[in-house]
């Protein structure tokens, strides 16, 4: 076990630091709508032009193929430089769709989409959850009927982040009539401009609309847009979720170590006070989340489901840091501001991408080996 850097790695870190210092936009990212799309794409294009996009992607697909060590170095510099949040509208493309195409896509799909994603020319959204299929994703009902060389999609998706400003959607639908649960599904690339698609943005509790409901009314998608094979969508989707639980969250997890310093700076508690005690605990946990991030990235062999431990620790700590910020701000928190905005946004941390309760079930059953619950 060691945390020492070769001179080349040190040079890499300093280079990243200098580049970020010169290039991080001065203006904060707009919260929603087309301005947020333009901002994110422009930032990604700038990253790409200097060789900083697709860091975890293999070099064969235009990525940087960075080692886990360099990923950590880059993201630490990234969050310390207060660069734009990595959880913007390019997140799904870079961290879900792209890697899924790399793993399961056809040559045509890869050749067309991967450069567009890396260069900051296309936005993707996710189409997994439905009104009746949240934590229980396998109960999804949106159908795709095979009709010649097309599938005809009917149904509804929800909580699809950035759907209204996206070009493509990774759409998980039931293509085998009469199939149940995780059988008979397909993972499809859906062009968001196709006829029959209606998008209704949903305003969240922070007062911004970055997720949406999507309705499909006889939407015809060519069969060639299926990724990973007809009726094999569950396996394709699991590839995507597996990626989400591994590297993509690294930047958010590391960011907590910066946020807690900013909060301590804001509060400046006297030693021995209750506030100092609370902030000390939060700071220690942020250090531990960083340590877990390192461990997840740097320990071989990777242990399955460890991602759930760090993900949940991160999510709950993020919420506690923001709740504490609001406590410290007092009445000042009644007016909109960066901490208050992030506080309200943080409520999604234990819901999106697998609720805290589901994550705890996974930890108990898959890591600790406790008996599974009775399921329908």
């Amino acid at each position, binding site marked *: *076990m*060691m*945390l*020492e*850097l*070769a001179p080349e*790695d040190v040079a890499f870190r300093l280079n990243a*630091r200098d580049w970020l210092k010169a290039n991080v936009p001065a203006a904060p990212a707009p919260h929603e709508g087309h301005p947020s799309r333009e901002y994110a794409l422009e930032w990604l294009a700038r990253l790409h032009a200097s060789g900083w996009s697709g860091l975890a992607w293999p070099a064969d697909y235009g990525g940087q193929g960075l*080692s*886990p*060590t360099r990923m*950590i170095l880059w993201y*630490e*510099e990234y*969050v*310390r*430089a*207060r660069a734009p949040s990595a959880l913007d509208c390019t997140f799904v493309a870079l961290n879900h769709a792209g890697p899924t195409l790399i793993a399961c896509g056809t040559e045509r799909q890869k050749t067309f989409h991967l450069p567009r994603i890396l260069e900051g020319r296309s936005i993707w959204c996710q189409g997994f959850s439905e009104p009746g299929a949240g934590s229980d994703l396998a109960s999804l009902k949106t159908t795709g009927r095979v009709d010649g060389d097309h599938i005809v999609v009917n149904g509804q998706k929800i909580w699809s982040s950035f759907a209204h400003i996206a070009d493509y959607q990774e759409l998980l639908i039931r293509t085998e009539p009469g199939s149940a649960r995780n059988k008979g599904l397909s993972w499809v690339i859906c062009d968001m401009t196709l006829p029959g698609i209606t998008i209704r943005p949903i305003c969240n509790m922070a007062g911004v609309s970055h997720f949406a409901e999507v309705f499909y009314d006889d939407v015809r998608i060519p069969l060639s847009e299926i990724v990973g094979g007809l009726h094999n969508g569950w396996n394709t989707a699991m590839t995507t979720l597996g990626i989400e639980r591994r590297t993509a969250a690294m930047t958010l997890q590391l960011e907590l*170590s*910066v946020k807690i*310093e900013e909060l*301590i*700076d804001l509060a400046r*508690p006297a*030693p021995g006070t209750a506030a*100092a005690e609370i*902030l*000390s*605990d939060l*700071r*220690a*946990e*942020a*250090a*531990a*989340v*960083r*340590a*877990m991030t*390192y*461990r997840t990235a*740097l*320990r*071989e062999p990777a242990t399955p489901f460890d991602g759930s*431990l*760090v993900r*949940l*620790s991160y999510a709950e700590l993020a919420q506690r840091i923001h709740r504490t910020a609001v406590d410290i701000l007092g009445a000042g928190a009644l007016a909109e501001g960066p901490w208050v905005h992030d506080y309200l946004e943080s409520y999604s941390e234990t819901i999106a991408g697998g609720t805290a309760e589901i994550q*705890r*079930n996974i*930890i*108990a059953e898959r*890591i*600790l*080996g*406790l*008996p*599974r*619950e*009775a399921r329908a």
Partner: protein
Amino acid sequence: MSYDLTPGEELTHILYAAQSLLDANYPLDRLRDSAHVDGMAPLADFGAFLLSLPEESGGAGFSALEEAHLHAALGRHLLAPTALASTLAARIALETGRDGLAQAIASGETRVCAGVSTRNDHFLFEPDGAAMAVIRTDDGLNLVGLKDAEMEPATAMGHGRPLSRLKDVRSVGNGFKADEETARLHALLTSAQLLGVARAARDLAVDYAGTREQFGRPIGSFQAIKHHCANMAIGVEMVSAQLDMAAIAVRDGREDAAFQTAALARLAPRVALQNARLCIQIHGGIGFSAEADVQLFLKQAHLLRNYLGATDFLSLPSPMFPLAKVPA
């Protein structure tokens, strides 16, 4: 050279050997007799008290990393803090130029117990046969002689393991103060033992939840119990990842060693106490009884937390300061 957190072969071997030693000599059921005093000979023979000392000082030449992992294993077996005190005492003796004393401590010939001295309370843990003690005070760590110590037996929390009260703290004198490096090792190793307690409590709880049946099925199939267990696993993972960060920082003399160790020392007692509490809760009635081992974890967590003490964590600079605040 690159970042790598895969445990090395040496570490794996040491832990494997330590585990057989602990299973043979320190099974948990030894503590069913509350008067039991842990002998130190098996650990001394193993070289446990000088594991991370350089070979030229008579040590085994391993590092703080192996030592921290060894103490996590000791923590699982609820070793008396005598093992911690002996390790620290050998260090303090060497620092102050008392090589002969260091040898006597490391070989187990001179027994050193642990103690805590705060404003109102002065305790020694399992002092029987101890010639010296490493006492944690609010100002640091002191190695003192017990020749003239005026002490009397006290009843430990919940009629637990042997404890004495120092009647007059001045009777032990000032002794030798540990330097900063040894004080940091104290925080690292005591936290590692707390991690061991947290792990043992998690494993006992998970084991029980998987076998105890109510309503016709193992209670571990119910979400309420599962989530307690998941919380125990999360706590262990946090502390154990932080332990590696801190141990590597201490081993390599990294700039962030103070920060990483203080973060660890902040987390470890909280998680050990949480896991001990949840372990009792999951066991129900038997967990509340003195007939099961469950309650021992709670008492050990309290003891180690007090031996660890507190630091002013917020005064230490973080390695993740935003760039604008990084000192030049």
